[in-house]
Structure formats: structure tokens, C-alpha cells
């Protein structure tokens, strides 16, 4: 009788199985050339035949919410294309984290745009932004190529 009452009560309050959204969040910086992609993205639906994701609820890059991500092969190398939201704090956080992790970047500042580049044995990273009045305006290009 007690069990029945408790079951009725719980069912009335939580009548369905909640999705564990936190457990589905994917940290894109963790992907390497050796990552088992089906396993890494298990639980997430994706669009198209490549791994293309548009649901920012599940995409992070060093804790920054990411708008869109695509993982695909480009000329025999696995690459991650990341589209963050065009927020200056997101740009600052991403840039800081990359400098903290990979050191000072190779810089190409044209005034109206700027490219940051890091090259290591495992990956090459290109972060390209558009600027207005010398300040960040939008992300142009954020591309990580993973080396074997």
C-alpha cells in the first residue's frame, strides 16, 4: 500500500523520464585524431552524413557555448569547424584558453581582421576574426585540423 502511494505520488510529479542534458554536453577541445567519433557523440542526433551539430545546448569549447560544429575529413585529415556566437566575451575566453594551452599564437593582424594560428604535433588551429575600430566584431573562421 505504501509503495503504491509513493509510486502514484512520484508519477504524478514526474510522469516521464527526463533527458540528462548535462551528461550529453560535448567538449570539442577533447577531440583528437584518434577519437572514436561515434562513441564521443553518442546520444546526440546530428544532421547530414558528416558530424554536423547545430544544437548549442550540447556544444562547448573550453566551457564556451558553441553555436555550430562540424567534424569532417579534409584532405585525409580530420578537422573541426567551430562557429561560436559572436560575443566578445566568448572570443576573449577562447583566445585566453588557447594561449594558456598552446602558448603565444602566430599573429596576422590586418586591422579590419586578425588571424591567430597555433601549430603543434597534434593539431593546427586557425582562429580568424573580423574587427571594427580595432575591436572584435564577429568570428570569421575557427578551424582545427587534427594530425595523426
Amino acid at each position, binding site marked *: *500500500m*505504501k509503495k503504491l*502511494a*509513493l509510486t*502514484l*505520488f512520484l*508519477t*504524478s*510529479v514526474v*510522469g*516521464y*523520464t*527526463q*533527458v540528462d*542534458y548535462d551528461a*550529453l554536453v560535448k567538449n570539442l577541445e577533447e577531440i583528437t585524431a584518434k577519437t572514436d567519433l561515434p562513441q564521443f557523440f553518442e*546520444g*546526440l*542526433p*546530428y*544532421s547530414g552524413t558528416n558530424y554536423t*551539430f*547545430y*544544437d*548549442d*545546448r550540447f556544444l562547448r569549447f573550453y566551457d564556451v*557555448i558553441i*553555436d*555550430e560544429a562540424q567534424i569532417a575529413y579534409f584532405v585525409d585529415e580530420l578537422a573541426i569547424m567551430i562557429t561560436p*556566437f559572436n560575443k566578445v566575451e566568448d572570443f576573449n575566453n577562447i583566445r585566453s584558453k588557447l594561449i594558456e594551452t598552446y602558448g603565444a599564437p602566430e599573429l596576422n593582424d590586418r586591422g579590419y581582421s586578425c588571424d591567430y594560428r597555433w601549430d603543434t604535433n597534434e593539431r593546427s588551429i586557425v582562429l580568424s576574426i573580423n574587427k571594427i575600430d580595432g575591436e572584435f566584431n564577429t568570428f570569421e573562421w575557427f578551424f582545427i585540423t587534427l594530425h595523426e
Partner: protein
Amino acid sequence: MKNFIIVLILLMSTAINSQTNYNFSEIKSSPDLQKLLLKIMDEHKETRSSMLLEFIEDAKVVDDIVTSSRGIYSSKIYVKGMHYAGIPIAEAIFSNNSIKLTTDTLNYSGKKLLEKIESENGLTPVYYNDRSYDWEKETETINLRVKFVNGENLALLGDKDFAVLKIDFKPIYKIPLAKIHHKIKKFKKQPDYVLSSSTEHSIYDVFINGIKIEENYTYDRLHLNKYITSNVTSVKIIAKREPDYNEKVYYSAAILDQSINEDVKIIEGRFLGDKTVVFETSFNSELPYYPEAWTNGSDLRKEKKLKEKVITLYNKLGKAILENDEQMLNSMLYQRQFEVQQVNYDTTFLTARILWGNLIERSVYVNHTVSKDFEIDFSTNGKLIYCHPKDTKEMIIFEEENYDDPFNFYLYEPKGSNELKIIR
């Protein structure tokens, strides 16, 4: 004290579950929808006329409720007490077979509705452009669109962000033919044998286990599973160059298991000329399921009244379709459809539902014609036949104004029966 607490818990759960007003999450079909709308209208007689959208076709009043000849046409409702499993709904638009719900803009209603629908139906990819989600289910098509008011993105939805949920209710079919997917098994290994031909400017006929393949297939790739009944399958190809082509033509082929992308048998290529070239081989066609198909059929080469039996079968099929005789259609087509879906491991609900929907649609046809003059091809020791009409385009044709719908099938006669059956 213990008993008092138990009763209190029971009363609380009853109160929460009573859903005193209008709970759209309980609607699972078009009749449910109409019932709820009538209930709302009945309980809001004074504002009923304002609920009806201006554009209502062939409306009439029945028992003081405005309906169209097809039921409630379209109504836009703003009444208190509307919710989807406790999530407040500000507006509901009812049509005959669909409902469109807009949440209110308070208390994270949009976020809550998205999470509720995902808990019921699973995750699905979001469409980037309009932040909408789609679910295609057996009896519902669901679309949910998130609308931002004070939220930044899907990960940071605001308390005022709302959602628009549209559910289209599909017919609920009870006939087994429309629900075959419930019976289809999945296996650990699911070989998918394909004959892949490499050739240009040639014409060729394929025979699998002696059965001439009559279906159209694309890109020179023929799926073989539905012609397989044992673990050894023979393949014969009769090829020649196209009549008006004078250059060298080459034909080669491979049988592969597409499920693991591996070749099972290579058919060595040869040049083709005006004379036919025959390629013959057999391969290991192991499957987790072998259909009975025609293996238990009678030898129809001995059947003296075979032509009459063929005509009788097609007339029976034609009558069943035009009269929408569900039981007859199920009886005539179930074995074929089940076997083909099972050998293809096809568990999707769409296959059987589309087949059934097409059959029902054909009841609008005015007439059907069955060929009376045709040749019969025999295969598998006379157990399987395929007919080639000489007087009509196909063995059975359904006719509508300016439109013909032709069909033809492989037939067999089960031992002990006196009637032919459609098998492929």
C-alpha cells in the same frame, strides 16, 4: 498516522493528476482532438463564436456547434486552463487532424515544453535557421519551434521565451499489413547482398536462382535478399551490346555484402558484342532469416487452368482495392510484404504505412483492367510464375481520368491450396 499520510499522498496525487482543465498531452488522435474542442466549446458557450476563425468552409450548425461537413474545421482558442502536461498554453489552433499550441511567455514555458517533448520522443537534430525540431512518429508528425524573447540561445533560454508546438495526427491503422514493422526482427549480422554491374552501353537480364528479375533498379545495383531462400544462390547474367552501338563494350560485376561493404563474389568481366554473353556463378548467401516464399509451392507447369487462376487473382485484387476491402487486401499481400521487409531488416513504420496508405487511396479509382492474353514465365521448378501481358500495358491497371496505375507480381500456389498467392 501512517494510514493518514498514505491517504494524504493518494489525495495529492489525485489532485495533481486530475488535470482539471484542458490537457493537450492527452490527445493522441484526431477523434481525441475533436472531443476536446467540443468540450471547450461546450464549456464556453458565451464566447464560442469568437473562437471560430473567419475562414471556415462549408460550415453548418449541428446541435448549436458550428462544424464543417468533415468535422470541426478550424478554431482558434484562448481560454484559461489550457496546458500541455502542466505547461501553460496561451493559444491553441485546432484543425481536423492537427493542433498548434503556443505556450505563454512566462516561467520558462518554452524551455519546459521543449524538454517535455524531448522526454516523450527523444532528441532530434535542430534546424539551424528557425530553431525548430521535428519528430516523425508512427501516428504523429511533431514540430516544435523555439521563439526567443529574452533568451540568448538554446543553451540560455530566457523565462519569457516561448514555443510553438504543432502536432499532425495520422490515421491509426489496426490492420496487420499496416503494422508489419512491429513483427520485424533485427539481427546481429544483417547481410545485404547486392549485384553491382559495371558496364555502359549494354543491355542485360539477370536471373537469381533461375528467377528472371523484372523490377527496375538504379545505378546497376540490384538488391538480392528478397530472391534468396537458402544459403546458396545462383546468379546468371545474359548480356549484349546495345543494338545501335558499335564501339567495344565491357561487362563485369560483383556480388557484395553492402552491410559490411565487402565483396562476396567477383564476376570476371568480358567484352560484349552483338551476340549474347552468359555469366554464371553462385555465392554463399547466408542470411539470419530465410523466407518460406515459394519453396512450399506446387509445380504450376502442370496446372491446366493456370491462366484462369491468374485472371481470378488479379480480379480479386482489383475488387479488393476498389472496394477498400481491408481484410482481403491484408490476406492477399501480408506474406509478401512481411517476407520482403524481414529479409531487408526493415523495421521502419513508414514502409508499411505508405504501402497501406497507397492501397487505400486507390479506392478512388473508377475501374481496373486485367490482362486476358499473357505469357507465363516459370521458374524454380515451376513453383514461381511471372506473367507478361500482350493485350495491356501490365497485368492489372487501375484507371482514373488521365492516369493509369499498373501492377504486376510474382505468384505461386501454396501446396494444399487451390488459389494463387502474391509472393513478390
